[in-house]
């Protein structure tokens, strides 16, 4: 994807700095990068290198100390955070963050409140998404009764609920066994192809990073390398 025709980047990160504790911790130190539409990018690096912080800034879960982040041509400082998260991005977390008292279907539906759909449409969309991640028969099952891999697939389905253009995944395979890891990676690739979304995945696992089109390596708050992943197979 990185070698495709020039297009407006899906994500532009320009000289972004993020400090914590009044400047004691400099998590990001002048990070700049671009992600093309429909690209699958993996951000890797050791713990504490700033990769998750960068993902949170792109998701508008936090604000940069300085610098600019532009998503689909819109500066995030000008975008309403809730509206942006609801319409533009789908988030997947390492700990899946599902609501344990709700069924699989309901976990997807809560992400669709305020999106203008009727309850019937929301239920149909949730069922469709569950089917697409292989959980069509688990609609009435609550998360505690799902396996780790199933929970992560459910989290992925929830991330897709509002038809986002970007999926941001923070260590989505971090707590999964190898079989489930492969299943989730296959699913991410399939989603990218079928639904036409851009994917940014944060991982410290080199094998997982190989699933992406491009790997961005970070260290101590800096981008140190950006390389195309070798063709799989």
């Amino acid at each position, binding site marked *: 994807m990185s070698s495709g025709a020039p297009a407006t980047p899906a994500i532009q990160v320009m000289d972004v700095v993020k400090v914590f504790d009044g400047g004691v911790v400099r998590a990001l130190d002048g990070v700049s990068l671009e992600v093309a539409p429909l690209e699958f990018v993996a951000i890797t690096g050791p713990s504490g290198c700033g990769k998750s912080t960068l993902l949170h800034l792109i998701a508008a879960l936090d604000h940069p100390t300085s610098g600019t982040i532009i998503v689909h041509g819109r500066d995030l400082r000008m975008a309403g955070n809730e509206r942006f*998260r609801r319409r533009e991005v789908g988030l997947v977390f390492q700990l899946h*963050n599902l*609501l344990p008292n*709700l069924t699989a279907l*309901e976990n997807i539906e*809560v*992400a669709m*409140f305020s999106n203008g759909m009727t309850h019937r449409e929301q239920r149909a969309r949730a069922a469709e998404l569950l089917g697409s991640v292989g959980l069509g028969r688990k609609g009435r099952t609550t998360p505690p009764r799902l396996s780790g891999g199933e929970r992560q697939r459910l989290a992925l389905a929830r991330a897709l609920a*509002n038809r986002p253009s970007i999926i941001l995944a923070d260590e989505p395979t971090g707590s999964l066994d190898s079989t489930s890891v492969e299943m989730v990676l296959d699913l991410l690739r399939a989603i990218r192809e079928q639904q036409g979304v851009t994917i940014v995945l944060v991982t410290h696992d080199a094998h997982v990073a190989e699933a992406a089109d491009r790997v961005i390596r970070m260290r101590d708050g800096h981008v140190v390398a950006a390389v195309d992943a070798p063709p799989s197979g």
Partner: protein
Amino acid sequence: MSFAGLIARNVYTRKVRSILTGAAVAIGIMTVVALGVLTHSLNRTAVSVLRTGSADFTVAQKNVSDVLYSAMDEGDITRIQQTPGVASVVGVLVAAVQLDSAHPFFLELGIQPDALANFGVSVVAGRPYAANATGEVMLGYRAARDLNKSVGDNIVIDGNKFKIVGIFSTGQVFGDSASMLPLTNLQTLERKPGAVTLAFVKVTPGANIDAVRAKIEHDNAQLATVRTQAEFGRVDRNLRLISAANVGISILALAFGAIGVMNTTAMSVFERTREFGVMRAVGWTRARVIGLVMGEAALISLLGACIGIALGFAAIRLIQRVPELIGVFQPDYTASVFARALAIAMGMALIGALYPAIRAALLSPLEALRHE
């Protein structure tokens, strides 16, 4: 799933929290309902003395602790009679006695026989008592039916034996449940010579009732006029105090209920920090988070209010068995008591859940997601 469905689901699945919060609300509402019905019913019983005869309004001594302690003399009655716009004044001495254990609150009305017509009395059986008779009495038809008495029977009231010479009707429930005897005789029996308790006033056709009342009160500073139940506190300080206590205890119930709701809701918000982080992360607005927390508190408070109302009914049943209240306390379930209970329950939810809801809404999504 609808937003309301999510609220209901959260209330149902978090049973312990819901039960604790609902219990706090239920206890408060039970207090409000029981006290409200008790106060209203006592008020109604006390006001009954004003409803024994037909009149446009009633006059009594101002600010007495109990309306039965009101005392007016013949001079007061004469001055009221002379007020422009007054058509008739009937001075009545009222005494409340215990007839027997089943009738602890029985009214004796002392009234001259020539005033019976103006008081709205129709003798439906027998005859009126004589003006100076000492052993004659008339019973209201409801009292006669209740006591299984008829003309010619004898009856002992407050230790005095009377012959029932007539049965009367006033068209007023309380009047028809009372007895009547000559004013002078009751004054003697009560050791209140020349005194009456109340004056029942009718105005001339076309007269402005409020203007007549104002004139009477202006000319007689020691007297107060009463036309409605709400005004009864002007001539019965005890009832005013009971009503004030009712309001005070309702406010306390609201405060304690709200603290209960706040306590459990705040705990719940803390425990669910990560959940709110997820909701904010998937695009929920702060307003929707507030709506969720407030909605859950409102639903729990509503359920607690229903239980509290049921408990209030049970409490009233128990109160009815208190010997001192038998006959005096006839529960009067008015819509206003239950409307107030529901309003207080919603107040508990609003006041109690507002702060935790705002806290939940102001959580940083990122910090909330990191919450253990």
